[in-house]
């Protein structure tokens, strides 16, 4: 079918109080094409999406939707013009039903005697909408809170599709912001199928992701952003990870992406031993040994029990069976605080929710795990906090205005570094990294890998739950594979003889 341009924007520029976030961006999207949008965090991807959705006006430049000038006053307005967005952080209201979520804000359609709403009718409609995105099995009457992430994602898409359908445009534009970050591989496959289906119907999709492989797999064309500028677009056929990476970061990717050459051999001393550990409904019969300075990777799909295993190890959950041993003595952690006393701390998965304290300063964020050591008597010197903060800021090269800067003003990567700084400042002996590079841009990723190597070199043992399989394998000395709550395999991953991803993967599926 002929590909007409349905959306285009001409030199869009956005200034935030003097700082230029977007610099004259041009973009054309034809009907029935999937466009990838990649770039490091802070490259301006989300800013552009926000402008398109009408959250904030552009400082200058125009946008056109289906040929006519387009300057949305808000989300709803954008919807009416045929543009919808699936947000990175999920936007379903957990205590409302699926149907109520899908039609949230559009209840007028189901008006009943004046102000009432006909929920039955709404559920019917919702069932149809869900069926269209191939999730007919989802019960519209179910509370969104009771669904798992993957299903919610589908509901999200259904919701967006439904809202753009209000515009009588024959082709829609759907923006997907990091849609895969919470999904496992099967779910991702399912998602991609849906996206392809939309494409065949002649709609257009903008796909934003940190995972280059996904972008390459799914898209037709890729726009690359860097520091708020468009640094070019490439036909996906002609592109490969290396070139994209180069465009994004401005330097060529290298084999040492994972700093494998820096990998050290672990000591023999066993710092943590787990015997037949179990948590009802999550995992069973988990046993392993963690050596001094070892990087111990745990692979497994979502639901394999690896997450729960972590929260037991840091004392956030109590095991229902089995024992944890540390240098010969058994441990029963009553709380993360208790675990920290024994030198175990975590870099949690949900950074904004359980990692950083947004409205506090960088300095405060770094010291809070280590207060008892840096205070003199009951006095806590601000100067000391400042020093410690500054040390970490330049050791991890955290980009910020100073130790007093609030963490909420930092980009994802830098915020993550702050969390690392806190963990290390706590002088822990065992560090549990739960998706340490989630939502972190390529540049920062590399720095974090280097950091992890340094940590292990210092003799700190690390448990890694990788964001991707290859990352996990590459980082670890030993890889434990979990499936449905059981350990299915423990393989060594020495420096120059890493196990093959495919082999590892087959123990996961």
């Amino acid at each position, binding site marked *: 079918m002929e590909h007409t341009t349905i959306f285009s924007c001409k030199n869009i520029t956005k200034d935030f109080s003097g700082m230029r976030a977007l610099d004259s961006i041009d973009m054309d999207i034809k009907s029935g094409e999937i466009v990838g949008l990649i770039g490091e965090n802070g490259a301006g991807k989300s800013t552009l999406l926000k402008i398109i959705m009408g959250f904030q006006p552009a400082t200058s430049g125009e946008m056109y939707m289906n040929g006519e000038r387009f300057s949305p006053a*808000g*989300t*709803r*307005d954008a*919807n009416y013009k045929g543009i919808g967005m699936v*947000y990175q952080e999920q*936007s*379903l*209201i*957990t*205590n*409302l039903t699926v149907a*109520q979520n899908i039609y*949230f*804000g559009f*209840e*007028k359609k189901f008006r*009943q005697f004046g*102000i*009432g*709403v006909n*929920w039955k009718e709404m559920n019917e409609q919702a069932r149809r909408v869900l069926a269209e995105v191939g999730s007919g099995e989802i019960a519209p009457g179910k509370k969104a809170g009771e669904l798992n992430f993957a299903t919610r994602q589908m509901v999200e898409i259904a919701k967006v599709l439904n809202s753009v359908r209000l515009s009588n445009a024959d082709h829609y534009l759907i923006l997907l912001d990091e849609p895969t970050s919470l999904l496992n591989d099967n779910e991702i496959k399912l998602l991609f199928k849906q996206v392809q289906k939309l494409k065949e119907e002649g709609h257009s999709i903008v796909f934003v992701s940190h995972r280059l492989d996904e972008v390459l797999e799914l898209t037709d064309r890729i726009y690359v952003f860097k520091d708020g500028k468009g640094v070019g677009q490439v036909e996906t056929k002609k592109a490969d990870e290396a070139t994209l990476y180069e465009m994004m970061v401005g330097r060529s990717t290298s084999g040492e992406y994972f700093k494998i050459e820096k990998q050290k051999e672990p000591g023999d001393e066993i710092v943590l031993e787990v015997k037949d550990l179990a948590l*009802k*409904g*999550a*995992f*069973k019969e988990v046993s392993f040994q963690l050596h001094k300075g070892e990087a111990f990777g745990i692979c497994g799909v979502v639901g394999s*029990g690896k997450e729960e295993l972590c929260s037991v190890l840091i004392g*956030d*959950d*109590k095991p229902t069976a089995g024992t944890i041993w540390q240098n010969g003595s058994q441990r029963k952690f009553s709380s993360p605080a208790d675990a920290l006393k024994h030198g175990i701390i975590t870099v949690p998965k949900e950074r904004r929710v359980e990692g950083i304290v947004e409205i506090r300063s960088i300095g405060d964020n770094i010291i809070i795990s280590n207060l008892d050591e840096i205070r003199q008597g009951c006095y806590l010197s601000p100067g000391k906090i400042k020093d410690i903060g500054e040390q970490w800021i330049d050791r991890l090269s955290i980009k910020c205005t100073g130790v007093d800067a609030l963490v909420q003003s930092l980009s994802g990567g830098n915020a993550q570094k702050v969390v690392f700084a806190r963990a290390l400042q706590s002088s822990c002996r065992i560090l549990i990294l739960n998706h340490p590079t989630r939502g972190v841009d390529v540049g920062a990723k590399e720095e974090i890998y280097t950091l992890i190597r340094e940590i292990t070199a210092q003799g700190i043992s690390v448990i890694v739950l990788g964001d991707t399989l290859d990352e996990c394998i590459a980082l670890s000395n030993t890889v434990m594979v979990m*499936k*449905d*709550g*059981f350990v*299915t395999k423990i393989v060594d991953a020495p420096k120059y003889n890493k196990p093959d991803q495919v082999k590892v993967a087959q123990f996961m599926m």
Partner: protein
Amino acid sequence: MQNSSKESITIAEEFIRETKKQEQRAIIMKLVPIVLLIALIIIFGSITPQFLTVSNLYSNILEQLSILLVTSMGTTFVILMGGIDLSTEGMVGFAGCFVGLLVQNSANDMNLGILGIIITILFSALIGAGIGLIHTKLRLPSFIITFSAGYIAQGLGVLTYKGIPAAILDEGIRNLYFHKIAGLPVLTWIAFVVFFIALFLEKKTAFGRYVFAIGDNEKIPVMSGVNVNKVKILVFVWTGICFGIAGIMGAAKLGTSQIYIGQDLLFPTLTAVVVGGTSMSGGQGGVVNTLIGVLIVTVLQNGMVMAGVPNELQKGVQGLIIISVIVLSRRRSRKQIVK
């Protein structure tokens, strides 16, 4: 692979069993308030047989809860939204004083009758709107704004009669209390009408859903382009209406228009809402819960007098019961954050 897959079923089963268990526990906990209510009735009944008489359980308690029920219906929505309303006593008192001066009364020669009632309700709604506007536009916490609004309303109320309360002579209003339908004064029936309106608003309208959404996570409705401020203002308007009606009922009961009409309503109202199972953080609960809460509070007060619990101990007993309800009716997961 074979064996692991076999065992994996057991894990899956375990998981399902766990979730099932939790769901069951949740259901049981949902029932705690109503169980407590029944328990109270039985206990008081066994202490004083007069308590279990129809005249007490039906005409007496239902009549006594009417005003509390109306105020709670208003406050429930604010709390569902995650806010709080402290203006109850002032607003109700004011409405009571205000209506007295509009209908036939001993202080002035006004005689608007039913119109007076309507004006009062509209005026209360207006104050509610004012509160909502200040809350949303000036971005002041509902706590502080309703706290002050309470003072102002109270002042206005006193100002209307400067110490000499007007006796209400209007038959229409007085009959709300004197005239009985099926053994209950009209105002009790009004209270139940208000309850069903509230129920309708909660269950059957988009407004109700928005209130829950705001209570759950305000950012999302904003993102979905819902006019959150409008909803918030409407909630306070509704609250104003409820307080207005409550005030009129109080005036009808007392026969004079004085600020006392609102006295000692704030904490019982909040207690009723919370004990019913509506969470202070918003997003959970509803008007049905509140109805049960109101019943618990009223039965307690009535029952303790019936059972002759010493005056000074009554409050304490009430407090302990409140705490124990909440302790029993809460799921306590380790990771849950409670403020």
